[in-house]
């Protein structure tokens, strides 16, 4: 199976020797691994050997260290500082074990498994539309990306053609959610820097986007909206006009807020040179998405591995080279503006035929499909096997899973108080990591 710009190799979980195609994320629990060769613009997806056809990734037990191994730091006065799983700073249940001699982070181990719902196992045997209901609940704020990737993989597995209008609706949902996620991340960083006025205003902007999503798709998180038989047909000309008008206002307001935030020295100072990630270590640790682009690697699936409608759109590629928390936030700010441009193009090119796929009456051939989507926090891959209209196998590699090692690497030698700036600048989500 070869797709535009990237190829898939199945059935191999051996280590990769080539230093450039570094291990992105690998745990011993049978997750997907995606190797990116940025020089050649190629990616290789390796699916681990899975004993038995139905076996998929199993849920890690809480307290284990499924995400990354920490540096074994010993020395006088060193100890492990446990942070979480329930803490005021991190909005999700997730734990960090910080190896330290006080104040300075010598090594950091993110510990997941507290939000495991075993989505990938629980969807086995379900019809695609029903499975989608669970997949999109993987992480509410990333629902559009997950469900789009899942549906694309399932459709590719079944060989089902998809109407252009539906692809446009998915792109619309994804871009809206990208707006929301980036705005949310900026608000979180502003909160960490105690920019309370900025925080409140940016949060209000995020809430406005959520309400917009709710009014167009019938659900604030767009749950069910993109699935076969869902209410996606509501995006009619009137909706699009309303969206276009509202987004224009949001864009103007964001531009003002963004310039005000960047003019605040206390905000910028706190982010600058915090949790730096060099280009080399970004590639080496397998970072994806805005994290990767902030470290000077220009990779975006919407450009490098585009699927319709992105093949027909102009997508700009915001890029920074500093690799610090500020660079990651700057990339997010620029992507908000880029997404607004993409949304305008979507409305301009909206297909005239308004047909929506109905659930398949007669199941088409069994098969395996792989889809790749640029989620707001990075490269998301789904590998789905469908037979008789039902999901037989499901694996995915979430961008958060890929970014944890990069986060751990960037925190080396940081101080405790850097934690929130670093964490929020990465946009990591425990829910989609744990699945």
């Amino acid at each position, binding site marked *: 199976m070869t797709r535009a710009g990237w190829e898939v190799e199945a059935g191999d979980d051996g280590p990769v020797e080539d230093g450039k195609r570094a291990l992105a994320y*690998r745990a011993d629990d049978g997750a997907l691994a995606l190797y990116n060769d940025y020089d050649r613009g190629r990616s290789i997806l390796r699916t681990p050997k899975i004993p038995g056809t139905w076996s998929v990734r199993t849920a890690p037990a809480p307290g284990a260290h499924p995400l990354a191994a920490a540096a074994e730091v*010993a*020395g*006088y006065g060193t*100890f492990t500082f*446990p942070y979480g799983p329930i*803490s005021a700073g991190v909005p999700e249940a997730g734990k960090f074990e910080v190896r330290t001699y006080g104040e300075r982070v010598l090594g950091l181990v993110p510990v997941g498994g507290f939000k495991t719902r075993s989505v990938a196992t629980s969807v086995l045997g379900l019809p695609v539309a029903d499975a989608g209901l669970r997949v999109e609940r993987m992480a509410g704020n990333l629902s559009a990306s997950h469900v789009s990737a899942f549906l694309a993989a399932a459709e590719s597995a079944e060989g089902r053609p998809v109407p252009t209008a539906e692809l446009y609706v998915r792109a619309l949902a994804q871009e809206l959610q990208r707006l929301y996620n980036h705005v949310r991340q900026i608000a979180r960083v502003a909160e960490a820097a105690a920019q309370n006025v900025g925080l409140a205003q940016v949060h209000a902007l995020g809430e406005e986007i959520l309400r917009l999503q709710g009014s167009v798709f019938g659900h604030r998180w767009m749950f069910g909206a993109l699935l076969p038989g869902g209410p996606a047909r509501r995006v009619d000309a009137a909706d699009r006009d309303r969206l276009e008008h509202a987004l224009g206002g949001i864009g103007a307001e964001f531009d003002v807020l963004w310039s005000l935030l960047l003019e605040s020295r206390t905000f910028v100072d706190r982010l600058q040179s915090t949790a730096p990630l060099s280009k080399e270590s970004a590639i080496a640790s397998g970072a994806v998405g805005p994290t990767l682009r902030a470290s000077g690697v220009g990779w975006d699936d919407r450009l490098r591995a585009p699927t319709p409608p992105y093949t027909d759109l102009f997508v700009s590629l915001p890029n920074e080279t500093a690799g610090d928390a500020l660079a990651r936030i700057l990339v997010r700010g620029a992507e908000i503006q880029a997404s607004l441009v993409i949304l305008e193009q979507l409305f301009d090119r909206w297909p005239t035929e308004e047909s929506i796929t109905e659930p398949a009456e007669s199941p088409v051939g069994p098969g395996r499909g792989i889809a790749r989507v640029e989620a707001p926090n990075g490269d998301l891959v789904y590998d789905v096997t469908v037979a008789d209209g039902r999901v037989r196998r499901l694996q995915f590699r979430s961008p958060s899973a890929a970014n944890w090692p990069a986060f751990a690497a960037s925190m080396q030698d940081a101080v405790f108080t850097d934690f929130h700036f670093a964490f929020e600048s990465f946009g990591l989500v425990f829910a989609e990591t744990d699945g």
Partner: protein
Amino acid sequence: MSAPYLGILLTAAVVGLFASAPAAVLARRIGYGIALASSLLLLAVAIATLATGPVHGIAWTGPLGDPESLQLDGLSAFFALAASLVWTATSAYSIFYDDRRSPGLAVCYGLTLGAIALLVSASSFLLFLIGWEIMTLASYGMILQATGRGDRIFSAAFVFLAFGEASTLLVLIAVAAFHVLSGGFLEGPVSGAGALTSLVFVAALLGFGLKMGVAPFHLSEWLPIAHSSAPSNASAVLSSTLTLAGAYGLFRVVSDLGSPPAWWGGLMLAIGAISVLLGALFASVSEHTKGLPAYSTIENNGLILVALGVALLAEANGLTELAVFALFAAFFQAIAHAVAKTALFLSAGYVEHATGTFDLSAVAGGAKRSDPGETEGTLVAALSLAAAPPLAGFVSEWMILESLFQSYRFSSPEAQFLGLLAGAAVALAAGLIVVAMVKFVGFALLWKPSPGATAPRAAGLGTTVGAVGGILVGLGVGAPWILKGVAPGVAAFAHAAVTAPVSGLLAVPDGWSIVSGSPFGILSPPVVPIAIGLASVVAWGYFRLGGGRRTRTVEPWMAGSAPGRPGETYTSFGYSTGIRIMLRSILRTREVRASVGPVTEAGLATPVPYNVDLEVLDVFKLFYDDLVAATAAVSDAFKVAIMPGRLGRYLAYILLVTLAVVVYVAVAA
């Protein structure tokens, strides 16, 4: 004039302290018992002296035809009081603590106590010097009794001896110059100001400052105690009373020198302020149960110098009232520190007894001790050193800051500015020392023990620490009355009649408050505990009678994880790493990483395992290391130049030196 039997008792106390040394050869406990009895006797005589007037003991004619005698006046009685208070505690403690086979520690202990008593009660500087030298040598002997690595003990003891002899040399110079000034060795005021007086002052300041361990000689204080882990009773005697002997010497000489020029006070204030800051800073990052109190001693002796410096500056500026107040502050600081520090060192010995370690990070996590008095006594002592009301350390810190606040009264802008800087240093140090004391109490006392570990009981040790804590509370709460008792000492120092800065104000009865200036600031130490007590009674009554609140015992919340997993508790090192990193330019913080073992896993988020060490450095130690290297290089070059094995060159050198001496004597005559 007091009763003649007091003189006999004074002689008996000094002789008894010395006699405890040979008695210890028979049995250690007998030696410590005699030391305890003699200390109590000295305490009684000192109190009687302060109450009734100077006491004269045995008198004889010295080898140089000088009249020698044992005597106590107000000044020496005050220091004898402070020292004997400490010794009473350490001697009682030693009876339980010292379980060595050899009597070496007990013998050296007795000799040190006797020597300090001798130098305090000496009527002449000659006798003072004899006591001073015996004290240095006997203390050297005590440090050699330490347990641990032989080479470290020896080198630490050697450092102590080197600094001790340097101090003796400087004191000798001061005494010689004093002899030229007064024509004798007898302690007493001399008149006249000139280069020679200033020489006496500078030599005394440096010589006694060496023993007090103030900057830049603070290595002489912390290094022998911390590096060798000297026995804890010895550490207490060294840190509380040996440095007190230095302070006494300085007080005595300065008192005898008459009207001081302003720069004396300025110099003293500057040295004191630097010591205060350095001592507090290094105490806060120390990881040693004895190194931490030893650094705190540097801070406290610096405070004594600050107060004395303000007094001298005020005197030079004609501000008698401020000078007297600062003197009272210096006296009170001396006794408050001596007592509190004793409790801390005895507590360190207790911790060592129970856990077998001096390492604060290792102490926390071991077995927990439950002897009555120990925790309370240590807590009180640490609070006092951290200047928490209503304890003695708070009163002295308040008095010293009050003195510094009034430095605006000085006439010259330089002195005002110096007072300002010193005030800032003292205030900063007061904050830093809180970190140190919280660390000591938190990690040496209040940790949660690892399950199953049991500690050996050491009831006698704990009780002593508790008793010292009680004394501290008494000193603090009764500060106005203590100050009245100290007044004869200050009067003897100033050679003038003084009244304690004590009065009443508002609803506070007369004599219950300490007043600085007229009035500048006011503090009533007895009212503080009364207020705290009343508030406690109200709170207790509310919860007791109201019954609205019940005590609920819960496991500590660890953010959803199971608490108390090994290796997940904050270490004492981690507690002060913030200071190490923030003040890295002063502390010269350096991180040393050494990788351990081969890299087996190529996982990229898995950095190489390594060992990390965050080191701090005392720049003064660097200076001394350089000094030692330079001295060694110079003497080596000298050796090669003069004594290369050729007789001719060596003889020529001897001849030249002899000629030079002859010429010098001829010209000088």
